[in-house]
């Protein structure tokens, strides 16, 4: 195994690419009681159009990656959760736009739990009956999200920003789309995306890396996989402009919820360039809209925003965007005020003091996030799929200058790239 030392943060990472293509990362943390392991495939809700090994191109139902994640837990012998419980582990999984992750945390029996994780994800078992049964369960999960105004306002914003790209589609699909899922389509997706060459295993916590590395190697040697495939994902061409400037929906909420998005035009970046764009954008948002900004305090004092107001930048190679918003009594006035203020910022630029303070804050927040083994494992994996390195965040942050942020401000905040999503109550309160 290779070792990579990150002296500034006092961490050592062990890495190995196994013969079957699996990327293995081990990060021992001294003094920790628990170990967290996450086994991730680069396959999410946006990967619904692709070429099968047979050469045929297929379009699978929306929500199938998430459905597959649910079904991996069911085996002929029963439910995998039962096995993890036996060894005291807490197991789970999640599906996002571009990846599916299976995970557990435990404070004992690491070897058993790790073998269990590798085995259950590499051993699909789907039957017609169990697929049908899952539709009721996931149907309730979808309905739960339909009642969640924060999720709704976010998904609607993606629908407003993206005309073609499948990031606008609900991760879990709809009741109608999951009705079309069969065990055959599940196997087709599994065969395409669950090859070890498309996956990353990250283990972080309390363990000795040598025996754990050996266990993983031996586990993988016992299994047969074909050669590492070239996966061909087919994404539609996404036009630069937003799909719709505004989407509104009515739901039972106290105050209206609003999100404003700016769809990125500088796409196609990878590796360190993408990381730098992400953190430059985050600094920009902190400076303009963070809780210490003049604009935040002004909007708060006017009663236009509440403590829920927040902003963030999401960086992916072909769909990046910034989002800001929260609860508000007057969505229209909030949008107008933000547009006016933003225009002024674009002319006046950013002060050195604001820039330095925000940079210090981001450095502190990053250090804090390294307390969390869950953050390290998931963020590392997510970055890895974009050719980016989590431990490069500190040096990249330190390299960003005020000029970079001002440049970013000019290229990112274009009003024609702006979309708005509002969720408000059907029955006005007053």
């Amino acid at each position: 195994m290779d070792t990579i030392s990150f002296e500034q943060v006092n961490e050592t990472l062990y890495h190995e690419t196994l013969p079957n293509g699996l990327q293995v990362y081990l990060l021992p943390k001294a003094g920790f009681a628990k170990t967290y392991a996450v086994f991730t495939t680069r396959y999410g809700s946006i990967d619904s159009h692709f070429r099968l090994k047979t050469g045929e191109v297929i379009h699978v139902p929306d929500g199938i990656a998430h459905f597959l994640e649910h079904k991996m837990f069911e085996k002929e012998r029963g439910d995998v959760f039962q096995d993890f419980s036996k060894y005291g582990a807490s197991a789970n999984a999640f599906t996002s736009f571009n990846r599916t992750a299976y995970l557990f945390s435990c404070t004992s029996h690491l070897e058993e739990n790790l073998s269990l994780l590798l085995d259950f994800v590499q051993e699909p078992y789907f039957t017609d009956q169990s697929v049908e049964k899952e539709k009721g369960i996931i149907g309730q999960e979808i309905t739960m999200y339909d009642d969640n105004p924060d999720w709704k306002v976010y998904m609607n914003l993606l629908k407003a920003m993206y005309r073609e790209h499948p990031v606008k589609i609900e991760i879990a699909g709809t009741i109608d789309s999951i009705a079309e899922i069969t065990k055959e389509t599940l196997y087709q997706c599994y065969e395409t995306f669950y090859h070890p060459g498309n996956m990353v295993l990250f283990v972080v916590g309390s363990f000795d890396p040598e025996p754990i590395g050996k266990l993983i190697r031996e586990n993988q040697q016992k299994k047969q996989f074909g050669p590492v495939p070239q996966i061909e994902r087919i994404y539609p061409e996404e036009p630069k402009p937003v799909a719709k400037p505004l989407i509104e929906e009515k739901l039972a909420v106290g105050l209206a919820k609003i999100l404003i998005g700016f769809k990125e035009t500088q796409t196609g970046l990878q590796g360190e360039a993408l990381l730098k764009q992400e953190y430059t954008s985050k600094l920009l948002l902190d400076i303009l809209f963070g809780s210490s900004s003049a604009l935040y305090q002004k909007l708060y004092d006017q009663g236009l925003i509440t403590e829920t107001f927040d902003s963030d930048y999401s960086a992916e190679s072909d769909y990046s965007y910034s989002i800001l918003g929260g609860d508000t009594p007057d969505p229209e006035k909030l949008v107008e005020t933000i547009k006016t203020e933003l225009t002024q910022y674009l002319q006046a630029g950013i002060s050195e003091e604001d820039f330095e303070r925000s940079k210090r804050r981001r450095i502190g927040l990053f250090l804090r996030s390294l307390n969390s083994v869950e953050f390290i494992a998931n963020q590392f994996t997510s970055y890895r799929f974009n050719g980016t390195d989590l431990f490069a965040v500190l040096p990249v942050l330190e390299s960003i200058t005020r000029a970079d942020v001002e440049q970013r401000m000019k290229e990112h905040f274009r009003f024609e790239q702006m979309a708005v999503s509002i969720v408000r109550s059907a029955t006005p309160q007053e």
Partner: protein
Amino acid sequence: MAASAQEIAFETTERNGMNVHILSTEKFKTTTIVVMIEQALSEEHVTKTALLSLVMKRATARFPDTKQLREYLNFLYGAIFDVDVFKKGERQILQLYMEVPNEKYLSAETPLLEEAVRFLGEMLTRPYLENNAFAEKYVTAEKESLRKRIESLIDDKMRYANQRVTEEMCKGEPYALLANGRIEDIAGITGANLYAYFQELIRENPINIFVVGDVDKGQISEYIATHFALQRSRAKALPATQVNKAVAEVREVIERLEVNQGKLNIGCRTSITYRDDDYPALLVFNGVLGGFPHSKLFMNVREKASLAYYAVSRLESHKGILMMMSGIDVTNYEKAVSIIKEQVELVRNGEISESEMNQTKATLANQYRELLDNPRSTIDFAYNGVLSGRERKLQELLREIEQVTVADVKRVAAKLQMDTIYLLRDNKGEAK
């Protein structure tokens, strides 16, 4: 020296009439400091305490302007700072929270730790005042914020249903109150009466300060003594939480709202709290019933009947309430209630397999050992001990869980009284 890897070992001393608990460990890249001010949960105080949490974080004498205060936190390398309220049993806790990076990872000259303690201390000792009262501009703005916060409870349907069933089952008990208080009390609060209340609170109510991080105990104690120079009288005793209440009959409450999914919440009284000898058995009981994905509720409501995505039970350990929760299609209401009742009966009858017992003990033990890796969780664990008056060691609790038998679980299950069945449902269909 680093603390034991297997125990949550705070060292406690008294400073200025407050209890200071310090856990020195090299595990974390930050230092966490939490101040807990304890108040009886009551109609009289609840809204004032909640408003106080919002007004306090706007300014101090050194930072009269909120923007300056927030800028200073960024200057301290993005120190996390918040003031909040929550309830534990019939206690309302006003919590000041701060987390700063450990200086050893930074090339900074700022003495971050002492500055963080000073900043928190000033929240209590040097608040921003105008005419010997909290500034009206902040009080007025935060009254509005508090109103909005209470109104937006409805946004999260799971939390809303949980609060509504609690109000229904604990009518007339302090526990029915929301930690954020009541809208009707807000209008009567002024900068002057809020400041008077604040002074009383920091003079008389129990205060516990927790520190977790790579710190020198002697040094941090000195910082606290210096920057929390409060004039305190002896901490007053607060009334005990009402735990036992006879339930004459199970009530059914159905509420309608614009929702897609029905939220079914069943509130039960256990008559057992954190301080009781039966508490470990209660933990196992809850684990067998609905605490985990191997539990009876998950296996039967979700996996077998396919009725729900979530079907769980949760404990409130200071009031002794067990809450069963599930999100269902309203047409399956009767069916879900009947399956849930059946699961409770099975546990009551001791129909628990050996593997259910072993899995529950193993996952519970794991859950507790995982607390060791999170500064916040170690503080919560220690504070549960302080609040309940029974300070169990982590290893002691783990041993007690290990020793629980099926007979113990049956005994605990026999005490369970179902109190209120609550359904939040859509506006469609006939009114029931």
